């Protein structure tokens, strides 16, 4: 059961991610990106991290996608302004780099969950508590162990807000 659902979410996120980079119409790409984020959210849920899954939906599929769409509509590039396709060798090189990155990042993950390493790993890190990813646990952790980091996040948002509003807003003096 869980395996089937995992496959659905995994295929959904990867297929729509491929659609994001291959489709021609930028707005369609953004819609595909939403599907990809939703798939990733499903994967987080399967990993018993429902809070992260909801965050993924609210922040990524919700707010950030709106920003993406607005940028696309803000620029609203016509076909002839997009500058045409990149040369074939560039595109092949990009594919090559992607494959290399995937391989490099897969090695530790595969190595962790197969063979002797996995036995060691299981010994040192017992299977995490099923309650680890739920919102209550996260709330307890944030407000006790990471209280300072929590307050710093608000400062970080303020810095982002000031920088962004300053740069985006026309300012008339006085």
């Amino acid at each position: 059961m869980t395996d089937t659902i995992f496959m659905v979410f995994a295929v959904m996120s990867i297929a729509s991610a491929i659609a994001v980079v291959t489709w021609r119409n930028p707005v369609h790409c953004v819609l595909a990106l939403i599907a990809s984020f939703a798939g990733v959210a499903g994967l987080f849920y399967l990993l018993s991290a429902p809070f992260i899954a909801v965050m993924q939906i609210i922040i990524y599929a919700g707010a950030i996608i709106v920003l993406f769409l607005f940028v696309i509509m803000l620029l609203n590039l016509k076909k002839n302004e997009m500058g045409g396709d990149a040369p074939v060798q560039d595109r092949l090189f990009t594919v090559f780099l992607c494959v290399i990155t995937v391989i490099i990042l897969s090695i530790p993950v595969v190595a962790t969950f197969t063979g002797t390493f996995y036995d060691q790993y299981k010994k040192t890190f017992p299977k995490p508590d099923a309650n680890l990813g739920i919102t209550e646990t996260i709330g307890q952790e944030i407000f006790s162990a990471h209280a300072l980091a929590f307050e710093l996040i608000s400062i970080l948002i303020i810095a982002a807000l000031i920088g962004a509003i300053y740069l985006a807003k026309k300012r008339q003096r006085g």
Partner: protein
Amino acid sequence: MSSNLLFLIIYTLLAIATAGGMLFASYLLGPRRNRELKDTPYECGMPILGTARERFSVKFYLTALAFLLFDIETVFLIPWAVVYKSLGVTGLVEAVIFILILAFGLYYIWERGALEWD
């Protein structure tokens, strides 16, 4: 876990079925008169000038940006709301500091006119 998941799946299927059913019903029941004039935005009146795909104003972007940042604030307050009772006064103080700092952010964008439209 698995029962939760089952509810989620049922919910998702219901949502898809509702939305898809509405579309399908309107396709089935709605009248269809395909004429060129029917597809224009104004059946009578001005002929269309140009396309609807105009460049958006940067003001939309400012609003979306402020929305994103306060959205993140909300997301961080969800865990607080969930465990509010067991955290007690400490949690309340921490959340109030968090909100006060961000209230300054609201004051800032308000005074800088990022919420005005003109």
